[in-house]
């Protein structure tokens, strides 16, 4: 339902009495405050809007924690912008930087998508006025297993090779004597060792073989894993022991 706006909204304290539950998030609330007061979005009166935003979220504790955090984060942004407005900075080419610029960009982008969502809703409403057939005969599908299958192993193998091509870095096989020292094997070994303990000394990874090639490939493996954010490599000082640390899954 549409409400006609109060003629002089800024004088109506009731305006701040918004029901936060009805807003999808801080951007929604902020847009509401701006659009409902005939404010030029490119020249947001930041002090006033900040005050209204803070008033609106005063009872934010009633929201669940995650949502509350989202509103508080925006409040912090607003307060920071308000402070920056007092001390305008200049960019390198001497132009005055508007601290509101990024916020305006985000608001317009958000509004753009909300507009798009409105179009979707209209399409959905239109579609909801038409019905498919309510009941359709259940037809037992003939078992797919009986259908002919002409796929040969070469096609499966092509798929295998496509997967290989997708591997970020195809592991080079370093040969030592007759047996290849493969980086992927070393990487696996490092990860396996880190399943057992939180960290492992690099020397311990190499000692079972003690050859230069194993050491080099192991080091490359550790660096590759670090690059993929699967491990951390630490050395306290030059020539100090090198340690490899496990990274928790959610870290990377």
């Amino acid at each position: 339902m549409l409400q006609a706006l109060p003629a002089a909204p800024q004088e109506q304290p009731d305006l701040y009495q918004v029901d936060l539950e009805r807003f999808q998030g801080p951007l929604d609330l902020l847009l509401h405050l701006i659009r409902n007061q005939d404010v030029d979005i490119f020249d947001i009166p930041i002090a006033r809007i900040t005050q209204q935003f803070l008033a609106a979220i005063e009872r934010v504790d009633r929201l669940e924690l995650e949502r509350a955090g989202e509103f508080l984060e925006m409040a912090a942004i607003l307060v920071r912008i308000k402070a920056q407005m007092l001390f305008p900075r200049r960019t390198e080419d001497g132009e005055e930087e508007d601290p509101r610029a990024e916020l305006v960009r985000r608001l317009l982008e958000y509004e753009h998508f909300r507009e798009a969502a409105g179009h979707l809703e209209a399409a959905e409403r239109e579609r909801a006025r038409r019905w498919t057939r309510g009941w359709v005969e259940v037809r037992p599908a003939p078992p797919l297993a009986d259908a002919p299958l002409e796929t040969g192993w070469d096609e499966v193998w092509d798929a295998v090779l496509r997967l290989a091509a997708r591997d970020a870095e195809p592991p080079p096989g370093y040969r030592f004597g007759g047996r290849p020292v493969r980086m992927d094997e070393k990487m696996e070994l490092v990860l396996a060792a880190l399943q057992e303990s939180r960290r492992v000394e690099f020397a311990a990874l190499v000692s079972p073989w003690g050859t230069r090639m194993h050491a080099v490939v192991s080091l490359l493996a550790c660096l590759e894993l670090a690059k993929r954010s699967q491990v951390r490599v630490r050395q306290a000082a030059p020539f100090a022991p090198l340690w490899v640390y496990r990274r928790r899954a959610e870290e990377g």
Partner: protein
Amino acid sequence: MRPSRVVEAVLFASQTPLSAAELARAGEDLDEDAVEAAVAELRAEYEREGRAFGVFEVAGGWQILTRPEFAPVLERFDSVPANPRLSAPALETLAIVAYRQPVGRAEIEEIRGVGSGGVLKTLQERELVEVVGRGEGLGRPLLYGTTRRFLEHFGFRSTEDLPRPEELPVVLSRRNEDGRQDGAQAG
């Protein structure tokens, strides 16, 4: 059997849209052109006879649906369940996925300014959105895109039916006449 009746039987027995290629499977002598012609014939007949349903173009195929003017009648019947509608957060998230696909969760949350994991999951469960790949960068984030079911849900023929981004007015002045839920009201 007339090709149009063969196509009719299959369209009638399906709850989802069927493409020309799919419909062609119904008859030995059917190809995509014959299917097109049969569909056109059915359309014209239903139209002429004033049938309560018609053949509509949806999601790259055709589907028999009741005509909109019968909605008020159908809404009265318990055995005709209402077509499901999405929540505002779901629509908003879906709009972002539709226009930005393939898009990761982080970008969606950046645009919306709120956590969107739950909404995305719901959209995935309803098969309106699916994982279409992985992005570059840290953790190779999952990227989402819209599905054929998405087109069905909104009755779009293809993603071309979405209003082009440049057709969406980036509203620069106050706008408030579109029936959007209004949060602010005293009492």
